[in-house]
Structures are given as C-alpha cells and as structure tokens.
C-alpha cells in the first residue's frame, strides 16, 4: 500500500472543499454516535457503519442531481446523509420512532425519503439492482433526463441479480449507474474467497457496459470519476459500471469480532483515512485553516446532538396502527 502523496494546486474552490469535508465529518461523527447509542440499547437490530468509506458517498452524491433516483444497501447512513436526508429523521428512524424517515417501520437498513428520491436501503444483497434497471427503463420510456444510481458492495457482484441486471441494462440501453463500493470484505469473506476475477470492474466488458475503477479513499477522485460516469450516461443513455476501491475501518456490524482480518491491515488503511488526507490537502493548498476544521467539528457536533434530541423526543406508533402500510387506504 503506497503512501498517499499530497496533491498540489487542487482544481477545487475553498467553498467546495469545506462542503465536502463537512459532509464527510458529519457522516463520521454520526456513525460514531450511532455506535455509542447502540451500546446503550437505544438502537437495536443491525447497524452497519460507513466509517472509512465516506469519500465514496460524498464524492458520488456531489455528481448526481436531485432528479436522479438513488438505491442503496443496508450500509446506507453515509449515502442518506450525503444525499441530504435530515440527520434527525435518520436517528429517529433508528430509534424506531414514528418521526423517523420511514415512520420507524424500517430502521437503520431501510431509510426512505421520496422527496430526495432516496429509494431506500435494501437488505437483500443485490436485491435493488433489478429495480434500478427498471427505474431507468421508466425514465427512458418517459423520455426523462434523470438517471438511476444503485450503490452495492463487491459481495453483490457474486449474486445472479447483478448478472441479470447488467445484461438487461446493456440490452435495453437504460441510464443506470452501477456503483460498487469494493471494501474488500463481504461481511467475513475476503475478495479473494468470493471472486475468481478480482479486478471487478473488468466484468463490465462481459455485458458491453462501459466501466472504470477509482480510489475510493479520495473524495476528489471519486467526484471526478462519477462526473465522468454520469456524463457518459446522460449523453449515451447507456449504463455505466464504476468500482470504488475503499475500506471500512469498523466491523461489518456491531457484533463482529473481525476474526477474518488482521488489525495491522486495518491500521495500514487508516493511514489513508479519507477525512485526514483531504483535510491535509486542503490545508497544504491553503484553501482552509485549522480553525475551519474546528468550526466544522463544532457545527457537526451541534447537528448530531440536535438529531439525538429529536430522536429521544420522538414517539412510538400506537400498536393499533400495526396493520397500516400493508395496502393503500
């Protein structure tokens, strides 16, 4: 793993730098608070933290428009926050409160907000890929300009639905972005134990789908790669397959002794922490100062506390409403 060299004369403005950094730090602190609340039994069920992969969510969301459809997985807090979902509504959702973004009915793995075209976390690995293709198909049929973007881990690439979706997307020529976050571990299975071909992006060629890979630990690289991808899709109407190589610093979920990987490997990757590397680049290029970072940290801390208070004050849905949302009224 070569050391990340500091780039000079970055092609971005101070304002964009601050925005991207703020979003990454917001995600990081939000996930840390979620972990804390989980140990205090405020959040139950499964909780999959995004810590370490912030650059992918922030970089990607920056290059998608508000009309684009987003479909995510159960490790979705980063995507939801970067997409602009209110932290309070996410926290309340994890508390199971009806003020949550899914009325408390979905929890951490099923965040939904149609006003942000955020079509949920899907807890079935690869389960949302065919839907993304279908949504893109609908856009094509209605001659709309938006694209549909689905996020998934390298584990999903082993699912039949990945194969069927890639083929359908290419065959029908529909505007879908397949964005893979390759964090090297499908739960406890390292990449080499699940894929014969580990250069995942090359699988695009099998379906005639344009493909590329990028450094998922560098927010600017992800931003540029996704910009290139969405430009291709909007101009050709064809699908695109982008692999972001990244790494998760925390366990797969809260109750995971990480027997499958060495601590040293984790420490090595931590050296490429997306927040640290990006803030150093911004500081090195004198786009921001350390005070800016402190301001961001304070703002984020207030935002997080506001979210926790909102969730704490939330209410539980009356049991009488149990059978709501099964059929439309």
């Amino acid at each position, binding site marked *: 793993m070569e050391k990340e060299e500091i780039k000079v004369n970055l092609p971005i403005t101070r304002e964009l730098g601050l925005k991207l950094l703020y979003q990454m730090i917001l995600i990081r602190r939000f996930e*840390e608070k979620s*972990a*804390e*609340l*989980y*140990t*205090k*039994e*405020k959040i*139950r*069920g499964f909780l999959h933290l995004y810590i370490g992969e912030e650059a992918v969510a922030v970089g990607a969301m920056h290059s998608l428009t508000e009309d684009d459809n987003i479909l995510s997985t159960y490790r979705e807090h980063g995507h939801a926050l970067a997409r602009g979902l209110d932290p309070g509504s996410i926290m309340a959702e994890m508390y*199971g409160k009806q003020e949550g973004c899914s009325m408390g009915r979905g929890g951490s793995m099923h965040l939904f907000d149609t006003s942000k075209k955020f079509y949920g976390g899907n807890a079935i690995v690869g389960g949302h890929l065919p839907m993304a293709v279908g949504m893109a198909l609908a856009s094509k049929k209605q001659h709309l300009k938006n694209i549909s973007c689905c996020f998934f881990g390298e584990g999903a690439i082993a699912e039949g639905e990945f194969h069927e979706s890639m083929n359908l997307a290419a065959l029908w020529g529909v505007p879908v972005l397949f964005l893979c976050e390759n964090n090297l571990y499908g739960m406890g299975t390292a990449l080499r134990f699940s894929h014969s071909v580990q250069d995942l992006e090359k699988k695009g060629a099998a379906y005639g789908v344009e493909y590329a890979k990028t450094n998922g630990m560098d927010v600017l690289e992800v931003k540029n790669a996704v910009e290139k991808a969405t430009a291709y899709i909007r101009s050709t109407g064809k699908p695109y397959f982008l692999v972001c190589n990244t790494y998760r610093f925390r*366990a797969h979920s*809260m*109750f*995971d*002794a990480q*027997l499958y990987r060495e601590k040293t490997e984790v420490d090595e990757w931590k050296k490429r922490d997306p927040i640290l590397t990006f803030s150093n680049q911004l500081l090195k290029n004198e786009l921001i100062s350390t005070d800016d970072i402190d301001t961001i940290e304070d703002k984020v801390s207030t935002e997080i506390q506001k979210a*926790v208070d909102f969730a*704490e004050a939330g209410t*539980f849905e009356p*049991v*009488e409403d*149990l*059978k709501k949302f099964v059929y439309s009224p």
Partner: protein
Amino acid sequence: MIEFTMPSLGADMEDGTLVEWRVKSGDFVKRGDIIADVDTQKGLIEIEVFDEGTIAELIVKEGEKVPVGTVMAILIPVVEKVPAIKKSRIKKEPIKEMVKEGSIKVDDRLKISPLAKKIAKEKGIDLTAIKGSGPEGSIVKKDIDLAVAMKVESHVEVTGGKKEIAEKGLRAAIASAMSKSNREIPHFYLETRIDMTKALEWLRKANRQRELKDRLLTIVLLIKATAKAIKEVPSVNAFWENGLQLKNAINIGFAISLRKGGVVIPAIPEADKKSLNQLMDLLNDLIPRARALQLRSSELSESTITISNIGEGSTDKVFGVIYPPQVAILGFGNIVEEAWAKDGELSARPVVHVTLAADHRAIDGYLGSRFLMALKRNLQKPEAL
C-alpha cells in the same frame, strides 16, 4: 461522575467477560479510545469509551463475566458536556388482531355447539326449553347434561325413523331422574284403603246417558278427587329447590305406561279447574299421543305432583318414587273386591289401595295422612267432583 458500563453489541448479547483492561486508574481517555477487551459468544471485541475523562476506578476485575449495562469503571469528566441520556422503556402491549367488522348477518337460529346438539339428539332433549350458558348465549354440553339430570325430559319430537333413539333416550332419562331422586330425597310412605262403591255406582249411572266415546273412566274421578284434596292440603303440591316452594297451579302429572316399557308423564294443567268431561277429553288426546311418543316437551315439564295409576289387572298397590323437584307421588292400585267391615257387618266392596310417597324435607306424616283422608272423603261424594 461518568459510569462506563458493559456495552450491548447485539440484541442477542446478554453479557460479556472482561479479558483485559487497556487502561489503569489515573489514565486520561478520549472519546473513541479502546478501553478494554471483552470476550463474547462472537469472539474477542475491542471496547471503546465514548466519554473524555480520567479513570477514577476500575470496578470489574479481569476474567469476570458481567451482564450488559453493569458499571465497569468510573470516570471523572473533563467538563460535563454530554447531558445524561434518559432511558426510554418501550411498553410492550400485546398486539391484538384487529378484526375488520364487516356487517356479517347475525344468524338468529338457535345457537348450540355441534357437540351439544349431538348429545341433545341422542338423549331426546327438546332444545327450545333450555337456556344456553355458552359463548354468545349458546347451548353447550353442560346445559344438556343438566337438563337430562334435572327433569324426566321424555320429550320425543319423533318424526319417522328416529323413534328408537327417542325410546333409548327416554330410558336413559328416567334412569338418571330416578337415581337422583333416590340419592337426594328422604322418602316416607303412607297408605290407606278407599271404598269405591259410591264412586263406581255414580260412574255407571253417568255413563249410561253418555255416548260410547264420551264414557268416563274411573281415573278421572281419582284425578279430580286428588285435585280437590290438594286444595285442602296444599303443601303436597310444591317443589323442593333448596327450600320448599309452594305451587299455586295444580298440575297433576299422569303416568302413562308405554306398551314396550317406559313411562311418560304428561301434566294435566290446573286439574282442579277442569270438569270430569274436560279431564276425559284431555286423556283421550294425551294417551294415544303418549303411546306414539308424540308429546310436546311443554306438556311434560310442568307437573307439580304425580299420580301413578297401575291400572286394572295388576298388582294391588304401587309405591312410587318421587319425580324431582316434586315432593309427593300418589299411587292408585287396582280396584279389587275385598272384605269391608262397617258398623259390625262384613260385606264385599270394590276397594282401591292408595299410597302416598312424600319428601320428608317438605312434608311430615301428619300432613300426609290429612291429605289421604281428604281424598277418601272426596271419593265418597262423586257427584260433588
């Protein structure tokens, strides 16, 4: 002070074993520092601390297994920044199955459980007279069992081929009523002989002016005489249901024996108010229907006292078993010619032996004999019946 507690890492994690502290008291820790290693069913997990402060005391020893939430260490906070997080308990209500109230037509038909219905059919029980104690006021097994035990319900709504069932049911019904009677009623018996000369003489004269089919039988005289005697000694005409309950209506149960065995006891309602002719018409109607097992249950369930009339060509006397909840039963034997001594002279006279079986809880010997003497007097003045 800040408490560091054993964290919950999964909904199914109940406890953890402290393997190793990574800090000692006096150390300063920052949010996110690894403070200990804990062993769980999933393996060894590094535990982070979420607060900043100095370790004041390590309470739990290494190697100790403690439940989630146990205070493991105390920290002295740098500054009290983070407000304490309230514990919100989720009330666990039972989830009721919400039933959609459609307008399901209420079935106004008699509500009876299939099982109860089966037994009622076997025992020949008429359902219209039974109040249900089951759900929605339905009749359940218990109600049928009670009906069988309490009354001689020989209702036989007989249609076509179901006669045998009714007769079998009848036998069962009589058996259970009689055994209950013996078990619960302290019987005592009285007996007397009644000279029937005047009565039979009056009867023959009366029948001579009647069409054949309107002829009176002796039994109507006996019934009417009994009714008149009851007016003089009313306490024989009562029920015993935890206490004596006098009955003002005089409904005389008249035992009709069936040719193949078994007895059916229709009630002659308000026998005291009926003329001899009316009584005869009633018998002409009741007896054939009884023999064909076609009596309605209402006709069978209201007797306040019973007459057992063995009838001609049979034994001289009959000692009855009281039908609960009545308190008396009168037995008329055969009318036989016997020696009768009167004013020092001996002559042959038609005599009937009459017995009274009574419930000693309700009546005692003195009242019983007064009743029989009244009966005797009434039969000496047939024209007044």
